């Protein structure tokens, strides 16, 4: 059987096969070690030009991509929407075509509109990587979550992962649902019914109405960030009540039949969706997630640039 490839763009995990997802996770393994070295650099993308096009504020994802790019020796430019031609009314497609006219190789895009990454990928020749589009997908977050789960459990298949919080507005939830179900995990979603998207069970997930149900059921909880503006839009009454009904607390976790692994894509609202003693506790892998983020993004950049997984090992071995 031939080695799978990723194609031109990474817009989401929905279009990927299990083999393609495993290819990325396996390719990320040797790249983890690069970040542990004194000299954190391999020449894999030397001479490649990458634009990080961020239409939404982002700290962790943008920096993670930038580190991934620099550790692969790519040349990078960051474009933030504010202060650029975008703020002067330029359309997304014009912005992208202008960047492409400067002969760039890849675009990493974060955008508030669902479908923006796919839209861009269909209109330019450069590789496009989705760093989060609206409420659609955030594939590299899904991948780093899966890499972190696999590190701890040594498998994905058969794991029970509960995604907790605002599923309705979450691109992280969608990428996790696609990725995990394709790799054979069982996925549960837990949150107020007003924050669950219509028909979500048709995506092959179990609905867990209460956080206590999720804690009883799951091997791992992926706790999503709750955004304040959703309260203002009337989707739930208050942060206080959210914490009392859906907050992940040590008290609730103590009633679990087993120790649960705790993930959170960040940034956290301590004391809202997750208590500090859980976030900082022994079963939290929130910081290892961040570390894995760089490795997963290196793998995605490397594979889209045409690298093969065997070379990734060799590339990482070069000193």
């Amino acid at each position, binding site marked *: 059987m031939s080695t799978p490839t990723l194609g031109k763009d990474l817009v989401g995990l929905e279009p990927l096969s299990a083999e393609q997802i495993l290819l990325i996770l396996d390719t990320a393994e040797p790249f983890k070690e690069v970040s542990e070295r004194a000299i954190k650099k391999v020449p894999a993308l030397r001479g490649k030009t990458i634009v990080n096009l961020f239409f939404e504020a982002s700290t962790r994802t943008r920096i993670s991509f930038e580190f991934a790019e620099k550790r692969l020796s790519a040349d990078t430019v960051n474009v933030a929407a504010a202060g650029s031609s975008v703020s002067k009314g330029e359309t997304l497609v014009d912005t992208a075509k202008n960047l492409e006219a400067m002969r760039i190789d890849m675009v990493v895009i974060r955008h508030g*509109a*669902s*479908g923006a990454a796919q839209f861009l990928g269909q209109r330019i020749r450069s590789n496009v990587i989705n760093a989060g589009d*609206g*409420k*659609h997908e955030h594939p590299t977050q899904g991948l780093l979550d899966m890499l972190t789960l696999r590190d701890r459990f040594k498998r994905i298949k058969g794991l029970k992962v509960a995604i907790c919080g605002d599923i309705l507005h979450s*691109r992280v939830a*969608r990428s996790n649902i696609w990725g995990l179900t394709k790799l054979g995990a069982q996925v549960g979603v837990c949150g107020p019914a007003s924050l669950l998207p219509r028909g979500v069970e048709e*995506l092959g997930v179990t609905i867990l109405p209460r956080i206590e149900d999720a804690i009883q059921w799951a091997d791992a909880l992926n706790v999503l960030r709750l955004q304040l503006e959703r309260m203002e839009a009337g989707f739930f009454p208050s942060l206080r009540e959210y914490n009392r009904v859906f907050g992940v607390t040590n008290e609730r976790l103590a009633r679990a039949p087993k120790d649960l692994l705790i993930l959170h894509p960040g940034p956290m609202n301590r004391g809202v969706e997750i208590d500090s003693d859980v976030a900082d506790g022994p079963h939290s892998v929130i910081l290892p997630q961040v570390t894995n983020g760089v490795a997963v993004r290196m793998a995605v950049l490397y594979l889209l640039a045409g690298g093969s997984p065997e070379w990734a090992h060799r590339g990482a071995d070069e000193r």
Partner: protein
Amino acid sequence: MRPILIRGGRVIDPSRSIDGVAEVYLEGGKVADTGPSLGSPEGALVLDAAGKIVTPGLIDLHVHLREPGQEELETVATGAMAAAAGGFSAVCAMPNTDPVTDNQAAIGFIVSQAQRAGKARVYPIGAISLGQKGQQLAEFGELVGAGAVAVSDDGKPVVSSHLMRTALEYARTFGIPVADHCEDPTLSSGGAMHEGIVSTRLGLKGIPAAAEEIMVARDILLAEHTGGHIHLCHMSTRGSVELIRRAKEKGVRVTAEACPHHFTLTHERCEGYDTNAKMNPPLREPEDREAIRQGLRDGTIDAICTDHAPHHYDAKEREFDDAPNGIIGLETALGLAVSELVEPGLLSLPTLISRMSTMPARIFNLAGGTLAPGSPADVLIADPKAKWVVDPTVFFSKSRNTPFAGRQLTGRAEVTIVRGQVVYQRRPEEAV
């Protein structure tokens, strides 16, 4: 004006339950006679309609012609030509232009532009409220006096139930229907497509079916309460069809229309974020599409309209959330109706012509919709078996925003006659 004799065609006139091969003679802008053999009137233009159907010209109760205000998208003249090419002898233009057609001068402008164009008839629809702002009633009497055939705030829902009630009552004075765009904006706000499994997958904000049905239910209750005539625009959900069916059983003065895209496509068409599948009301679920088809079959839905909504390429070439709603429909409606409703055996051709001509004429009390002697010579000759492929680049409309490009359809207009004059004749080189 030269008289016209149409020979050899299958004459379908639902207004008189006529369906059979006959001749139709048009003289002085009127239908002079129909019958098995009308001889050879001197000087008449003879049109051979063998193998074709000869029907009253189609009538579209719901189009957006963009003039005044957005003439780069469509004008009354280009819209009237596109209509004629689609087999329509008359269209009704919604008032959400810039400025809004909420006064007699604006209505008069549409009437005069339509006369200058001299293609399909264009009947203006006046606004319900001044500026379509949903507050103060427009002067229905003045609007009707200038040529308006109905009132509507289409494009915007009538949020205030009080305003809708008053409009239904006040419209009775002038014998016109109130046409409503049924949408509860507190449920639909920010929505880009139907709320369902596809919106969940795509991460787009959904518009629930209930946003339409709540307003359909309200309008029916108000029509019942006031005795006014409510006409429900572009129905898209199975719940709406059921509400209308029950209201008609009770004898409420309610009529309804549905669009070809809603009996042809479903929300799956939004996959890939294709903005040509973005419209309001949105494409719904397969069960909704089926209910619309059944509603058209049993008459719960009285009429087929296009909701022809021209938009510029650049406006649609955007992120899905930011693209405008709407597709053009005048030049694909007949083909879609024949392909989706008649070919599968759901509607007979006479029923289809009733839904696209006779019933629309009755709902808005328009001339046409019949070939009875003495009625206006608005006639369509169509080939119900012709197969053709939708190519938006040859449309008469100024805009190209259609999700049907490349689709093979059956059935198209051959000749459209308005006021006894040929306003469209398909050029033979367009043959496939």
